[in-house]
């Protein structure tokens, strides 16, 4: 084998990314930098948006091939992110994140006022509105379902469903979902003020009743049995969410509870975020469809907020003014951001108004609600 200087320089040039970089990659690198800016400076859900953004960056550096599978004969290894991505593709990571979320979540406010669940159901409205419009815009049913789930305002659920129904839309949907979740404090307040009267917003709610430890322990078991029997396809999400919650409430497995909500969820978040971002290669991402998805995502968030508020108004009317409709918008999930928005808006109308605890009920109900919606869509189009 004889090597000349020219050969080597040529080889280096040929293997450099500069030789083959196209406008799509450049645009995507720019988008990655914007997302990093939003994650760090604007603090838009940084725990996921930062890894996602870095994944976008890595996936669009030409020739790095981090997402490329091994050759068919497995004679050499595939790319790093290809292997880490298997946990997304097989639906493992979202379930493990739900395990950690379950361990972090207190369902006490929901148990204290079970009618919160109605609000958590109503605030899934945007899922279906976005689904219908997406169908009208020509998306296939599985694609439309994945786009609709953005309105669930729940990241792991959206990733779980999209990875199964329309993996080619994964980056757009994940980025839209986490961005809009971060934008909840900007998206919801105008709608809340438009749909409710000052009088409604001023309503102070009675303090929630005490919830016993036993109720909290029985809750995850009952939810698992009932929901997974009614809708088996949602078992990986609801089952893990409730297992995590049982770790938390049982009080006898503090080690597991602690690991589920720290080391395990953090490791999985790093892998999930980076590889979901890495599915955003330029040719696939820079299509008109992506803009449509982003627009549809916003519509979904808006209609979910509207759905929750409208049922909140109905419940206010039915209970003779005991329910502040502002807690309805918290039903979109986006825990705990949406509940805090309810708190802030309530306090603006009435400085003595403290809705946070009351909004946490619909807020965590919204997590169950969007998982159920995802289960239905998976059953239909999976």
């Amino acid at each position: 084998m004889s090597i000349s200087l020219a050969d080597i320089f040529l080889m280096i040039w040929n293997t450099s990314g500069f030789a083959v970089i196209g406008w799509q990659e450049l645009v995507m690198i720019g988008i990655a930098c914007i997302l990093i800016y939003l994650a760090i400076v604007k603090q838009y859900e940084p725990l996921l948006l930062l890894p996602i953004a870095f994944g976008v960056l890595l996936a669009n550096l030409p020739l790095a091939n981090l997402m490329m599978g091994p050759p068919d004969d497995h004679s050499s290894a595939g790319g790093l992110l290809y292997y880490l991505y298997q946990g997304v593709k097989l639906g493992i990571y979202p379930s493990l994140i739900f395990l950690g979320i379950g361990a972090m979540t207190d369902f006490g406010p929901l148990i204290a006022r079970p009618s919160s669940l109605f609000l958590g159901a109503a605030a899934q409205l945007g899922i279906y509105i976005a689904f219908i419009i997406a169908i009208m815009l020509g998306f296939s049913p599985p694609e439309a379902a994945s786009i609709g789930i953005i309105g669930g305002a729940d990241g792991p659920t959206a990733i779980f469903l999209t990875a199964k129904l329309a993996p080619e839309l994964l980056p757009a949907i994940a980025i839209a979902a986490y961005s809009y979740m971060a934008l909840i404090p900007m998206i919801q307040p105008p709608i809340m003020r438009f749909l409710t009267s000052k009088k409604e917003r001023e309503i102070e709610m009675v303090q929630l009743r005490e919830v016993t430890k036993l109720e909290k322990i029985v809750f995850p078991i009952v939810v698992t049995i009932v929901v997974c029997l009614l809708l088996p396809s949602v078992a990986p999400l609801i089952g893990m969410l409730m297992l995590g919650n049982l770790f938390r409430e049982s009080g006898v497995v503090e080690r597991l509870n602690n690991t589920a909500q720290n080391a395990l969820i953090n490791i999985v978040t790093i892998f999930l975020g980076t590889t979901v971002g890495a599915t955003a290669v330029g040719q696939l991402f820079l299509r008109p469809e992506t803009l449509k998805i982003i627009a549809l995502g916003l519509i979904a968030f808006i209609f979910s907020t509207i759905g929750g508020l409208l049922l909140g108004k109905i419940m206010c009317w039915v209970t003779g003014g005991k329910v502040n409709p502002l807690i309805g918008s918290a039903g979109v999930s986006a825990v705990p951001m949406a509940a805090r928005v309810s708190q802030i808006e309530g306090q603006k109308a009435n400085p003595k108004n403290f809705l946070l605890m009351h909004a946490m009920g619909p807020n965590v109900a919204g997590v169950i609600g969007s998982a159920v919606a995802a289960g239905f869509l998976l059953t239909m189009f999976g």
Partner: protein
Amino acid sequence: MTLGDSLIVSLIGFSVVFIVLIVLSALIQFQSLVLGYVARSKFQGDRQETLTAQVPAPEEKALMTQRTDTVDTGWSAGELRLIGVDEKTAAMIMAIVSHESQIPLSELQFKMIKAID
């Protein structure tokens, strides 16, 4: 898929969410009713019994301490025990600090919450 089909699917899908969550809501209310009576007396009795049967005194104490801690840290409905500060404000402050610092509430320890204004 036609628009009509998508409307039907959506109607059904939205109904499914409502049905499942209404069923859940009913079950929780039922559960609370049943457990409400039994809970405090029976459950705690049972537990203490097991403990005394199995272990000598010192460990029981350690166990109790541990358990109380767990109970106190959540900010759920009725478990907030606040001293010298407005309950609602404290709850809000704790939730916000927890969210911003990315530390679950169960891991935060608030020694004192004092009003500045």
